[in-house]
């Protein structure tokens, strides 16, 4: 087998694209978890709905760009409804309960998707502007995949600016540290929780919208993605956004490179890496021990 650098480079880039999807999902999960100690099992189902929404909007508006912006907004709005009418009822109960509820919701959403769009997936082409390949000098790479990397980086920078440079971001960070104190200062955390839940879900929708042209849209597409995203936040350290980003990229590379060397092991390696990290650093790479335990 040719394992020269030139042969492995495309795999590294492919892994990077997958890593970007992991990052978007894991950052959303981690943001919600850090603030509300809620693990959203239906994150994968929202990712799937994001992809279907993109297909639907594309046939409706004929513009990929509109679809790419509107689909995450729709999923974000769905997230707002979820928090307001489902998750909110469970505050004050065991942290297991939101996980159980969103597990049920995930089942309902996947089955509903099968009911509406059928069991066979839909395919979706990247927009014409991004259809070709780009010559990077050392290799050629599909333009759409570079676009996915660029969009994710832009979103991450925007999120980082939002969390560190705005007042709302400050409240979110403070709420993550000490919700009781934030409430004591007279801030209505319920609205912040609603907002953060919506943002997290919108990120899942965006990941789905971006994944659509690469992987198609099918009802089960979110299932393995959400489990792998759980692994990503466990490895990165739960509640740590930096951890989610680093571990997301790392896991993308693990899958990308193992796919090249031993394709059958690709799905397994993710969990092996997780087990190794747990042995060496139980709280994850950037995790603080004791958070929400």
């Amino acid at each position, binding site marked *: 087998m040719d394992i020269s650098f030139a042969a492995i480079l495309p795999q590294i880039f492919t892994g990077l694209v997958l890593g970007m999807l992991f990052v978007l999902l894991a950052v959303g999960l981690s943001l919600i978890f850090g603030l509300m*100690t809620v693990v959203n099992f239906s994150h994968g189902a929202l990712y799937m709905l994001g992809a279907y929404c993109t297909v639907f909007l594309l046939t409706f508006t004929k513009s990929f760009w509109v679809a790419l912006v509107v689909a995450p907004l729709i999923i974000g709005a769905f997230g707002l409804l979820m928090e307001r009418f*489902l998750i909110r009822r469970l505050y004050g109960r065991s*942290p297991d309960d939101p996980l*159980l509820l969103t597990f*049920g*919701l995930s089942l*309902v959403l996947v*089955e509903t998707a099968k009911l509406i769009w059928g069991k066979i997936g839909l395919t979706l082409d990247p927009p014409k502007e991004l259809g070709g390949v780009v010559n990077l000098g050392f290799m050629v790479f599909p333009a759409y995949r570079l676009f996915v990397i660029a969009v994710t980086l832009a979103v991450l920078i925007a999120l980082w600016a939002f969390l560190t440079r705005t007042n709302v971001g400050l409240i979110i960070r403070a709420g993550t540290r000490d919700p009781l104190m934030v409430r004591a200062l007279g801030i209505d955390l319920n609205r912040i929780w609603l907002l953060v839940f919506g943002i997290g879900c919108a990120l899942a929708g965006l990941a789905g919208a971006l994944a659509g042209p690469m992987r198609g849209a099918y009802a089960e597409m979110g299932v393995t993605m959400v489990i792998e995203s759980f692994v990503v936040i466990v490895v990165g350290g739960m509640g740590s956004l930096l951890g989610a980003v680093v571990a997301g990229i790392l896991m993308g590379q693990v899958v990308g490179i193992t796919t090249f060397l031993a394709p059958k092991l690709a799905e397994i390696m993710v969990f092996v890496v997780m*087990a190794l990290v747990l042995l060496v650093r*139980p709280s994850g790479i950037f995790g603080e021990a004791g958070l929400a335990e």
Partner: protein
Amino acid sequence: MAALSALVSRHQVIAFGIFFAVFPFLMPYQALASQVLIFGLFALGFNLLYGYTGLLSFGHAAYYGLGAYGTGLALAKLKVGSIWLGLAAGPALAVLGGAAIGFFCLRRRGIYFAMLTLAFAQLLYFIAFHLADVTGGDDGLRGIPLLPIQLFGWKIDLEGSLAFYYFSFVIVWLAVAVLKRILDSPFGAVLQAIRENGDRASACGYDVNRVKHLSFVFSAFFAGLAGGLDALRLAVVPVESLYWVTSGQVVMMTLLGGAGTFFGPFVGAGTYLVLGDRLAVFTERWPLVIGLIFMAFVLFLPKGIWGTLVDRLPRGQSAGVKP
């Protein structure tokens, strides 16, 4: 009514035996009765960990699947000549898996624990999926013989759904008696103390992590026994036994029935399977309906069917574990 409920709560194991002795005749068909019994046992194992110890595992398919593959491989590949040895191989493998995976998962608590158990179950699923030479991969492990029972020179044939039902019934009844013994022991009391307040149990001098690990292994044993029985029932081990959907099923069954109650897992397994069986006649998308019902239970009836019922019933004089 009060007298009956007091009697049932005082003699739970006997009540279980009487009810399930006539159970196949209450069901639409007997194969469904065996399925309820076996999944009830699986849920019972899950309930020991979640309902009594307070640890939510989202990866119990791992131990059920290991049990199924253990029994399946012993009988189909190793050609073990005795049904008892074959059946024992299942829970044995599940216990080994539970001990190893429990070690990793118990390094983290709370919500991490749920996610880790799920991750490890998926790991086993992918291993079984790709190790097709041993497990049959996607096609499942086929050719598991249903050997006759040989006991003290007797020989009983298990072909036929009623014969198999009563074979499973005896084993599940024994398992229920063992569980009752565990729950009534000081160890069982410590489990429930950990569920109520882990720090306090620790302050009382109990090695909380060791007790949790032991509970995990016991739970894996019951799940593995259920898996082994199911391998005999189906004569095949589908790779989906290890899939997260199976883990989700046992979670839903236990919560529907009532986590932390003695009969809840069986009530839940029965409700889930009979409902699924009836709904499947109308729509292929029946999990949608079950999912909605499950969500309603988490929101409005967190104690499940049996747990809610027990709360409403007049309680007798019995002490100890709730029925």
